[in-house]
């Protein structure tokens, strides 16, 4: 591919004696819709943590927009354009929904309060949380919290958005809603990595899918091919 947006090469991560990631290499093109699947404990979130900077990988390199980012702390990577949502929502509980979005606006985009509030409301409207804008984050339902996670990541105006199981527990129509948002973000030029267990969402959304198992990539390709792959099926069913 022409210069990849994100290049992960030979990344490994160990926790004591346990190997969470083993020589993982991925290249993601600008504007791509990329799916990451794998059974629980396969290392998906660990990989995301290494890319976003929440964890330091032990070996290998990670390049974003041609630049090595391995040594950068997470907040720098966010400022360079990598945003992520958390699998288990981590809202700023003492703040309102709107204020939650103001944090990335202030610290990543550096907008003045008035402009930031306007743009934040735009995002909330787009994602369906506008009526809860002034509610405290700790009053939201699980589903609303997941939407807030996504909204907060969007507020950082990323080049690369990593959505970590944003659709877990959502109803069919809610999944469609979120997919529509992700598609429209992608249409604006944002590269998206989607981690999901909901296979039909991954199939509909991704142009390319990678499957992880026990810290290793076991296959990579078009969604239909991946799902039909016997090794992937074995990984999920556990043999």
């Amino acid at each position, binding site marked *: 591919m022409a210069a990849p947006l994100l290049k992960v090469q030979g990344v490994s991560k160990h*926790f*004591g004696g346990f190997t969470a990631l083993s020589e993982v290499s991925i290249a993601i093109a600008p504007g791509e819709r990329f799916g990451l699947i794998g059974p629980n404990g396969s290392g998906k979130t660990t990989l995301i943590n290494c890319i976003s900077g929440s964890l330091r990988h032990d070996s290998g390199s990670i390049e974003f927009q041609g630049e090595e980012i391995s040594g950068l702390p997470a907040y720098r990577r966010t400022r360079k354009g990598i945003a992520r949502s958390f699998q288990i929502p981590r809202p700023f*509980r*003492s703040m309102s929904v709107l204020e939650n979005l103001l944090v990335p606006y202030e610290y990543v985009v550096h907008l003045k309060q008035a402009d930031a509030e306007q743009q934040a409301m735009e995002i909330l409207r787009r994602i369906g949380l506008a009526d809860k804008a002034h509610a405290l984050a700790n009053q939201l339902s699980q589903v609303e919290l997941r939407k807030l996670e996504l909204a907060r990541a969007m507020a950082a105006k990323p080049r690369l958005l990593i959505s970590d199981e944003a659709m877990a527990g959502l109803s069919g129509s809610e999944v469609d809603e979120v997919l529509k948002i992700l598609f429209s973000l992608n249409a604006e030029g944002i590269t998206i990595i989607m981690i999901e267990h909901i296979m039909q969402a991954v199939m509909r959304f991704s142009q390319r899918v990678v499957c992880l198992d026990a810290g290793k990539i076991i296959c990579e390709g078009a969604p239909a091919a991946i799902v039909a792959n016997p090794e992937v099926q074995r990984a999920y069913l556990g043999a």
Partner: protein
Amino acid sequence: MVFSFDLLFEALLFGVLLGCFYAAVSIGLSVSFGLLDVPHVAHPAVMVLGSYFTYVLAGYGLDPIVAGVVLMPAFFALGILIYRFYYETFEKRGSEAAVRGLAFFFGLAFIIEVALILGFGVDQRTVHATYIGSSLSLGDYRLPYRMLVAFGVALVLTFSLTIYLSRTFTGRAIKAVAQDEPALRLMGANPVAIKQWAFGIATGVSALAGAMLIIVGPVEPAMDRVYIGRTFCVVVLAGLGSMTGTLAAGLILGIAESIVLMMFGASWAPAVAFGLLLVVLGIRPQGLFGR
């Protein structure tokens, strides 16, 4: 500053005994903080409480070690109470309560200290036993019997706890709950009950540690403060959750303190633990054997 190889060797011997004592005193914290992640800064205060109860029981003629053992069940129950309270009030509520949990234990330590002052005064208290006061002579070196007794009890304690954690079902469940709570739940075990049990054991052990404390030297209510340094130093240096590491770390601290004591005198010795702790936190916060 006095220096000679003879003195150095004696300091080393004393340091080994002292180190094992520190390991035994810290092992409860290794479980409650190292494994269970409870910010138990009141651990030394509970131990000092154990010392004072030992003092009271010794006043009735009980040998201090026997008194310590007798206190263990009561302290076990106390531990369960404290953990239950901590869990219901703080741990369940998530990270926003973390500051409050810490403040709670700080307040608890403080209340214990002041209660002891009110009950016993600020003067030092000691106990008497046949092995306190005399020393074993090995050639040119003298090893105080009370240190040897503490050393012996310490080894037994550390050993039994390590075996318990690695060989018995409950023990392994305790180690498991530290590493992978969801998996434990899937196995049908109740993590809260296990943690409660573990905390009870850690507190029960503190009773015996308290008895050793008053055997090794006089105690006073404010002693818990310097022991915060020593116990956390040992636990952090060992690496959170490592029992065998506790022994190694205890030895390192004991020897370091003993040498500083010999070279610079008693006023600098308490600062050694804190200084070592800061160094470890600065260069290798996961400790020697930590995960």
